[in-house]
């Protein structure tokens, strides 16, 4: 087979070009050239996208890269200070490390929990029950609401000292505390809020589950495989591409979390910087403390960290994600 392929290639390469072939090729070339030259109108249709790409993405990114090497306070012109912002960040800014700590904890705890819950609920909802659409909508609802400021405010009330959650605990005779204002628990209320918004990965899992081949399960059922084994030996391996997709997306999302941290801590990132998520710190530096150059540097570090996490994810995926051959 290999030899046949090689022969073919050799034949193609060595085929002498006849005059008629030459004419045909010239005609093609002219037609392509005409198409290229006169084809301005597709670009006109693409123009809004290009304006968006260059005006709203590439230019601001380059500008922020430049500003990250300056001392820019928004009000007076930027001054070039080289790598000082980056240097200060890593050597002389304890709040930066507080925010890194809070953010990593937030990402590493909330993402696995959220995905586990999303997969669990997706499996429950992957049945032909009456009114299943209603259930699916009900479980998806928090994700529609979750990003809203209003929900974060509700969260603050629920987990406050005299909030609903403590009333609930009181039924069991447990005396609660103010979960939001204690540095040991504040971040976990944020994590809980994130986990509660499991709707988007759930819908994606549900779509994945629908695609799984039924005959494999039928064969397994005939062989008497238990549901637990079925889940770990069939469902999960077949679902790994979907899991991978969700992991990548949710990690990126979690790194960028801002609104709940801002609202629940009243913009302070407190108590004791325990809810100072990275994006919140970045915002505070840029707009409240008037250190836009420093904030730009923070933004680029975040960009690189997210890129790093994603790259590691892709590399690791070779060992655990299985695609159909």
């Amino acid at each position, binding site marked *: 087979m290999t030899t046949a392929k090689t022969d073919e290639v050799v034949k193609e390469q060595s085929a002498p070009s006849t005059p008629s072939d030459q004419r045909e090729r010239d005609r093609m070339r002219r037609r392509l050239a005409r198409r290229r030259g006169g084809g301005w109108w597709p670009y006109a249709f693409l123009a809004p996208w290009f304006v968006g790409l260059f005006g709203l993405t590439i230019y601001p990114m380059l500008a922020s890269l430049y500003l990250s090497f300056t001392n820019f306070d928004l009000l007076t012109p930027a001054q070039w200070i080289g790598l000082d912002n980056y240097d200060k960040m890593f050597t002389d*800014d304890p709040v930066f490390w507080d925010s890194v700590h809070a953010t990593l904890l937030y990402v590493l705890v909330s993402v696995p929990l959220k995905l586990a819950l999303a997969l669990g609920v997706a499996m429950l909802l992957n049945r032909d029950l009456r009114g299943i659409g209603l259930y699916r909508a009900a479980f998806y609802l928090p994700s529609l609401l979750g990003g809203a*400021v*209003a929900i974060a405010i509700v969260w603050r009330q629920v987990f406050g*000292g005299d909030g609903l959650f403590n009333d609930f605990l009181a039924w069991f005779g447990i005396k609660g505390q*103010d979960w939001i204002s*204690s*540095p040991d628990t504040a971040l976990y209320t944020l994590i809980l809020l994130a986990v509660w918004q499991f709707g988007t990965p759930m819908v994606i899992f549900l779509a994945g589950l629908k695609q799984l081949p039924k005959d494999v399960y039928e064969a397994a059922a005939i062989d008497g495989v238990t549901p637990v084994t079925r889940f770990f030996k069939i469902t999960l391996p077949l679902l790994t591409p979907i899991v991978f997709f969700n992991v990548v997306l949710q990690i990126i999302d979690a790194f960028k979390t801002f609104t709940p941290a801002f609202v629940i801590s*009243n913009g302070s990132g407190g108590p*004791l910087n325990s809810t100072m998520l990275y994006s919140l710190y970045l915002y505070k530096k840029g*707009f409240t403390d008037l250190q836009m150059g420093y904030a730009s540097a923070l933004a680029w570090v975040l960009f690189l960290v997210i890129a790093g996490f994603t790259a590691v994810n892709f590399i690791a995926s070779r060992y655990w994600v299985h695609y159909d051959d």
Partner: protein
Amino acid sequence: MGHQISRRTLFRSASGIAVAGALGTSLSACSGGTGAGSTSSDLTMIWWGSDDRHAAYKKALATFQKKNPKIKIRETYSGYDGYFDKFNTNIAGGSAPDLLQMDTALVAQYARKGVLAPIDSYVGKSLDLTGFSKTLLAAGTVDGKLYGVPSGIGVNQLTVNRSGLEKLGLKLPDREWTWADLKKISTDVYKKSGGKIYGVDDGGGGTLQCFEIFAREHGETFFSPDGKKLGFTAATLQEWWEYWADMRKANACPPPAITSAAHNDLTKNAVVIGKALFTFDSGVYGAGGSITDAQLDFLPTPQGDFSGAIEGNFVNGGVLLSATKASKKVADSVKIMSFFAQDATAIKDMQLLRGIPPTDKARKLIASGLTETDKLNMENADYISQRVGKASDALEAPAPPPQGADQIWDLLFQSNLAVAFGKKSIKAQLGEFFDQSAGILGG
């Protein structure tokens, strides 16, 4: 009306008044109209505050426009949340408003960055500041130039739940009280209430600059005159934190969870939720009126009860009205400032909504129309300003705080909290506080 209408009070009021604070302000930020633009020929004016203050401003400005039909004013207003974020963005984007309500805590920062227009040349001409004392004008004076007209007298004072105190059979302390008196009555409150109510909210974090007064009683300032360093010693701060550690131990002030919850949220203030009877946060009776049903009263910050103690209280300027340097209508803006400073209808419209009016004439104008609590409030503020005026040993009123002041105040709050939560010893936290402060002020 809180006399100390500093940015931090209002930050708290703004975020606290509505339960849906952030939602409310983000909505009002939108409803406040488009970003003040240079495209229009209108004079753009922005301010922050409560609904009461908005209404008062609008009423006064309507009178102004009747008298000056040529000056068209476009008003934009919101809560404190996001007010300066938006202002910064407008300045950076070249669409600065012409006239704005400015925070005494931020005026130095903006003046030194060249954002504000100096207005000395108008004083005595179109800007009538008759009756304004020199100490009051200091609130708007940066490096010898005037950048804003103060709206009224601001003093630091404690707000007291008087009816709650009487219910426990306790008497309102004398105005000449000391830190030891505060500790005694606060401990009594806890005992007499059967452990249900603490005495005073935790002042160790320096809410509302009560630490600043404590430092001044030691003859020290919060910031050095040039704003590049802290003006107080580690020994003073240590003494302060030890006082509050004792207070917490005696249950004279509430545990850190309550203190922490009240941070930036007036609705969780210990006096408002009924967990304490004294608070340093004058926002409890703030620019929007009282947010508790209790009968309130007011007291000066306690006096130093250590050797060499001097008068620590001071008078500042409420909020300011400032013009921006980029504006082409500075002259018109100055006319409006003058109107708010001297016009009888404007003074009556504003009442105490921007602080106790700055001149004797203005105070007399509004005296008859005040509510009972407003009257008590003004009396106490008068008392403090007279005491400060008579004190021969008092330091000058502090210069407007430098850039980074906000971060330092927050650091002070978080440091006290770290001690209160038992995360750090006072000694260790002192070291961190001075290290980080140096970083903030130096860089």
